[in-house]
């Protein structure tokens, strides 16, 4: 019933191994997390704490890649506000407080034959570790506003990496869905895994449903606790049997949900 001292999860202070810009206002950070690296499922996230005491709430960032041997995690974050700006100022060998891992990641079968991964913008990173672990054929569709990132990393694990950019500066001009419709061989059976802005998730879900593919989407919501205690980070999830909906916690039941169960009409 009661956990012992070493079984408790905890906030840990870890060393930053790397913290570099990989695109405009996008940073890659490697963290030395030790044994924790062994516990990660792709699609899970970590909580990063700011040093500035006026910023109390942790920042949730998805796990991008895991190096179990070295005991390291890679995350990729965009500078969007005060906290991520603070993170960008840190140097290697400094420390940062984190809780890891949190949430429920993507699910797949050990015999998986065909997977379609679709990421948009800062939704691209969490798909990398997934691409690495998935068995079978893996198609990857990545959308960016302009400057792509992590593309080479994906190419290490699959030959089928397709890029879309809003401004056409790289890959196909247009949305990732456009490319997906054009390029995917659309097998009989496949699973779709996606992460990105809500409108994209919604349109990919619609496409997947039409194709009859199971689809998993990773959602974002503003968080406080990250452990399921405050019921702050909810999204509307419907029961496919009863049609009833309830608010579920992105940090606990998610961030990865069955796309078909998500009710999209909430403002985002």
């Amino acid at each position, binding site marked *: 019933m*009661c956990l012992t001292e070493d079984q408790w999860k*905890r906030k840990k202070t870890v060393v930053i191994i790397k913290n570099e810009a990989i695109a405009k206002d996008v940073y890659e950070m490697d963290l030395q997390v030790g044994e924790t690296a062994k516990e990660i499922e792709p699609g899970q996230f970590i909580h990063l704490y700011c040093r500035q005491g006026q910023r109390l*709430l942790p920042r949730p960032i998805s796990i991008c890649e895991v190096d179990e041997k070295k005991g390291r995690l890679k995350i990729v974050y965009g500078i969007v506000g005060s906290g991520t700006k603070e993170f960008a100022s840190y140097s290697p060998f400094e420390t940062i407080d984190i809780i890891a891992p949190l949430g429920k990641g993507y699910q797949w079968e050990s015999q998986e034959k065909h997977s379609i991964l679709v990421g948009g913008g800062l939704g691209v990173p969490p798909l990398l570790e997934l691409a690495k672990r998935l068995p079978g054929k893996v198609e990857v569709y990545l959308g960016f506003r302009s400057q792509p990132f992590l593309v080479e990393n994906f190419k290490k694990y699959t030959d089928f990496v397709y890029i879309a950019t809003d401004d056409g500066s790289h890959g196909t001009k247009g949305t990732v869905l456009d490319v997906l419709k054009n390029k995917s061989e659309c097998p009989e059976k496949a699973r779709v895994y996606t992460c990105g802005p809500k409108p994209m998730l919604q349109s990919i879900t619609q496409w997947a449903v039409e194709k009859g593919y199971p689809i998993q989407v990773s959602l974002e919501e503003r968080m*406080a606790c990250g452990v399921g205690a405050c*019921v*702050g980070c*909810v999204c509307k999830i419907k029961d496919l049997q009863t049609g009833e909906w309830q*608010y579920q916690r992105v940090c606990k039941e998610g961030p990865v949900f069955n796309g078909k169960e998500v009710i999209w009409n909430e403002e985002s």
Partner: protein
Amino acid sequence: MKNLKVNIAGVELKNPVMTASGTFGSGREYGEYMDLNQLGAVVVKGVAITPWKGNPPPRIAETYGGMLNSVGLQNPGVEVFIEQDIPFLRQYDTKIVVNIAGKTIEEYCQVAERLADADVDLLELNISCPNVKEGGVAFGTDPRMVEKVTREVKKHSKQPLIVKLSPNVTDITEMAKAAEVGGADGLSLINTLLGMSIDIHKRRPVLAMGVGGFSGPAIKPVAVRMVYQVKQAVSLPIIGMGGIATGEDAIEFIMAGATAIAVGTAHFHNPRASLEVLEGIQEYMEKYKVQELKKIRGIIK
């Protein structure tokens, strides 16, 4: 070892550290991060007679030294609570306090009545939630309503009844006195202030509800002031809260007049916050040779 025991309305707590309602779920989640046996009491999130869906997201906004929430008392209802949460919490050697929510006086009474035979130690009447349209804070800002709802719920309660007050009032002592007259066995204060935060890039409030409950270290001076004022005005035991993150914060509330204290928002910054508050209280007592908390309680006159 110093004596940390405190007595709230006849219920003895092994120490004064409680968790603030709504910030600690039903104990289960943070139970993975700390030993719940060490807490004086676990105060669970607001429980209503039927399941409540709560408010649309975003429900959380960060502010300078604090946060806003507009959870709106999402909860699965008292039946689920009795079935699942009480047995879970009873595994631990800590007191159970149930925060009760309602949209009408009748609903509050129903929850209290349903809990009468349940194995819980204290009831905390939440008439101060700023995030619900009906009930909640509407009851907590009018002394006549405070008195009335307290009196009615008290009739249906078997456990001692703590009334949780809203800080969003001109004179907190009026509300405290009204609760006392209504028959409250103790007071909890403060619930959240009412605040707002605007996303200037999206040109809309951060919270979907517009306004929300403001908590965290930022609000501590208001909370300490109110505990102090209420201590001067009524003789009920007070559970003090609002921004407590360290043992020193807790001592401030105790000196202002609190018998017990609750740790809320601080958990989000540090999952073990309540235990660290407890350690900090012990350190203070060691350093200043305070044998029991009674010796410093309400020492500020």
